[in-house]
């Protein structure tokens, strides 16, 4: 933080504190030997031990991450090209219609999406399980990707493309060397938001899953009636810590290698 005023710094610290407060709260109680989120009795690792002792839970966790990453990736690809396509539509009305269609899934409550996808899948005859969950997650993540990529495309200067084409670049070149690099931040944003959608979804997954396939969200929601165990807190704490480490680690390794290259 170089040129930020103290006021600005305080503001950022405050926002970050609020964003992380509930997570730290969950992690704090994951060490509670009393087994609940009310009174902290004494420190224990037992809930973490329980995570590793429960192979079903670990499989569910892996499934969850797998679906999130894969659906995020595929939705990002479909959505990015969709956004490029939408921008290329010249008729303003037509474009609004396309965007409206794009947003239908964002405005529809999960139950409706879940129920209608279930009807669709059984109608087509898709076996419920990993594949149906993956396809559904791709389906409801596409619109968010489009909405994240769109502003980058809109602010892109057409003269850039024209210049490239004047210089003899093919359509492919224009796409690969001009458009995609320029909108890359939007693409990454879309991917990360798709991950959020996928990791958080309960209702859609519940309806379209079957044959033993389950995700963490489904597991957590159906525990609510009899009480969510601290094992879930522990597993969330682990996910959180690992994610932060990976992100921070990746960031510094990446920026160092970039610096090394610049240095050469």
């Amino acid at each position, binding site marked *: *933080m*170089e040129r*930020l005023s103290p006021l*600005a710094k305080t*503001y950022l610290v405050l*926002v*970050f504190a*609020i964003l992380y407060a509930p*997570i730290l709260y*969950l992690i704090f109680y994951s060490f509670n030997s009393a087994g609940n*989120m*009310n009174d902290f009795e004494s420190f224990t690792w037992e809930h973490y031990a329980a995570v590793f002792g429960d192979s079903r839970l670990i499989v569910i966790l892996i499934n969850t991450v797998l679906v999130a990453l894969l659906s995020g990736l595929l939705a990002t690809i*479909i959505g990015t090209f*969709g956004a490029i*396509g*939408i*921008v*290329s539509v010249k008729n303003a009305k037509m*474009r*609004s219609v396309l*965007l*409206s*269609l*794009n*947003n*239908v899934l*964002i*405005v*529809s*409550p999960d*139950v*409706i*999406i879940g129920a*209608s996808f279930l009807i*669709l899948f059984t109608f087509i005859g898709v076996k419920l399980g990993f594949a149906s969950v993956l396809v559904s997650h791709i*389906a409801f993540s*596409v619109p968010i990707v489009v*909405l*994240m990529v*769109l*502003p980058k*495309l809109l*602010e892109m200067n057409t003269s850039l493309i024209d210049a490239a084409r004047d210089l003899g670049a093919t359509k492919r070149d*224009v*796409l690969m060397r001009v458009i995609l690099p320029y909108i890359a931040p*939007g693409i990454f944003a879309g991917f990360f*938001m798709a*991950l*959020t959608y996928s990791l*958080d979804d309960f209702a859609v997954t519940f309806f379209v899953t079957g044959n033993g396939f389950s995700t963490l*969200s489904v597991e*957590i929601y159906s525990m*609510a009636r009899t009480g*969510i165990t601290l094992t*879930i807190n522990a597993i969330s704490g682990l996910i959180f810590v690992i*994610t*932060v480490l990976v*992100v921070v680690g990746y*960031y510094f390794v990446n*920026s160092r290698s970039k610096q090394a290259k610049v240095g050469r």
Partner: protein
Amino acid sequence: MQTKNSKSALFPYAIWIALFVIAPIALIIYYSLQDLEGNFTLANYAAFFSTVYLKMTLSSFWYAFLITFFTLLVSYPVAYLLTKTKHKHLWLMLIIIPSWINLLLKTYAFIGIFGLYGPINAMIEVFGFDPQQILFTNFSFVFVSVYIFIPFMIIPIFNSLDKLNPTLVYAARDLGASSFTTFRRVIFPLTIDGVKSGIQVTFIPALSLFMITRLIAGNRVITLGTAIEQQFLVSQNWGMGSTIAVFLIFIMVLIMLFTGKNSKGGRA
């Protein structure tokens, strides 16, 4: 942009629209025209125009507006300040990561934090005040909703601020513009696409929020999303649930057409 190239790029997207947007909409409309016994009827639509549902629609809009407004108010400065930090992309990632922890769990955490015996009230008591009822108020509902949408709003704004050419800002300053004028006349207009995107990804889902209306607002706030949820799962009246959904989609399309007019300045 060349049309042919884009047409083929649209292909998988078009399939997606056909399968997962058009087909479900058709299904929803089909169900909305049926009564409990499966007979064709318009009764559901008539029922929607009762005071209960109209009141609910209005309150849904009001809350979605409040949520979007406060989310933007909080997020814009964050996005702006983040672009000025040294490791801006890292900080941005750290804004996103909390959203990967399960929402129900975080909501339970908020219930604990806001509770009568939670840390917030403990702090209030340290300052010598009486514990306050925070949970199950409109405030807590809007607060938690804003919490959920902050990353969705920050990212597009950050992206449009990030590439903002600093020379433009310097130029404006050199020409004697105050910082407020610079912001109003130079920075904000250039980030309007990002802001619009952020508003869309906040306002549209906020219309159909359902879980936290119960968990955080204790059913004191009832949105269209809650109503649909109830019709589908509790009353098992898919007809009425679908009808409300049709209206929700219809309203969304109206908003899109309305805001779309201003944004047709796209440079494609």
